[in-house]
């Protein structure tokens, strides 16, 4: 039953990514050139709803569908890992025009060369795992 729920959320996410054009390489390029409000509207409205939901969940101690506590564990404090890692991610985001979510959506939409991006992203993740102990965190 839970699996059905997760699948439904994924499908909704995928449709939203595709139909909102957030999965389009062109929209990402346009965003980084500040030539349209489009992507800022998508991220911004998701953020407004997100902030509101987190506040409501914490204020009223709202439980999950299954009656479980919803926790928001704070992320580890650091500057280096977020700044450097973020910069590297951004370079890739600008070049491939896709972040991890849309990578999956684009596979379904039939843009098969995105598989090259997916395999390379897995390789990048693997590389991070190998170098992790030698990187500043």
């Amino acid at each position, binding site marked *: 039953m839970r699996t059905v729920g*997760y699948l439904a959320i994924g499908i909704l996410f995928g449709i939203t990514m595709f139909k909102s054009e957030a999965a389009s390489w062109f929209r990402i390029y346009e965003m980084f050139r500040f030539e349209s409000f489009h992507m800022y509207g998508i991220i911004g409205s998701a953020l407004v709803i997100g902030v509101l939901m*987190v506040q409501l969940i914490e204020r009223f101690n709202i439980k999950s569908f299954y009656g479980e506590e919803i926790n928001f564990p704070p992320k580890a404090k650091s500057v280096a890992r977020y700044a450097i890692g*973020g910069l590297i991610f951004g370079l*890739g985001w600008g070049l491939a025009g896709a972040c991890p*979510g849309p990578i999956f959506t684009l596979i*379904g939409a039939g843009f098969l*060369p*995105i598989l090259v991006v997916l395999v*390379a*992203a897995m390789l990048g993740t693997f590389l991070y795992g190998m170098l992790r102990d030698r990187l500043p965190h």
Partner: protein
Amino acid sequence: MSSNLRTLCTICGAGGASDFFKFDWKTQKWNLVVVMGAIIGGFIGANFLAIDTIVAINPDTVANLNSLGFSSAGQAYMPTELFDNAAFTDFKSLVILAIGGLLVGFGARYAGGCTSGHAISGLSNLQLPSLIAVIGFFAGGLAMVHFIFTLLF
């Protein structure tokens, strides 16, 4: 979303190479189900919910992309130069896609999250680390599009 890349590495046997990949991937099954959904959603969106999928970007962006050699700007969902099946046999396209993916995968794990984890979830929870990461995302994207693109294309 990006943590699924780590899970996929573990499923492929990366646990033998680094402790970072030594975990029970079955605990992440729910997240892989969401990914399955995201793929199906992309299929549904492209095949059943679209009359035409042309992305109407700003004419200034189109002109800029045309000058860089992207003739499909304003006429397609994705640049055909990179995402048509012909890209599989074009060396430059393959290199661009591979380097882009490599940076996305490496950077997302180093930063501990991607657009969904930091820009949406992390910022929703007003986390300072996520703000630093998102500033990094944008700094990287701006550098790529405004400086490195003119060298690449």
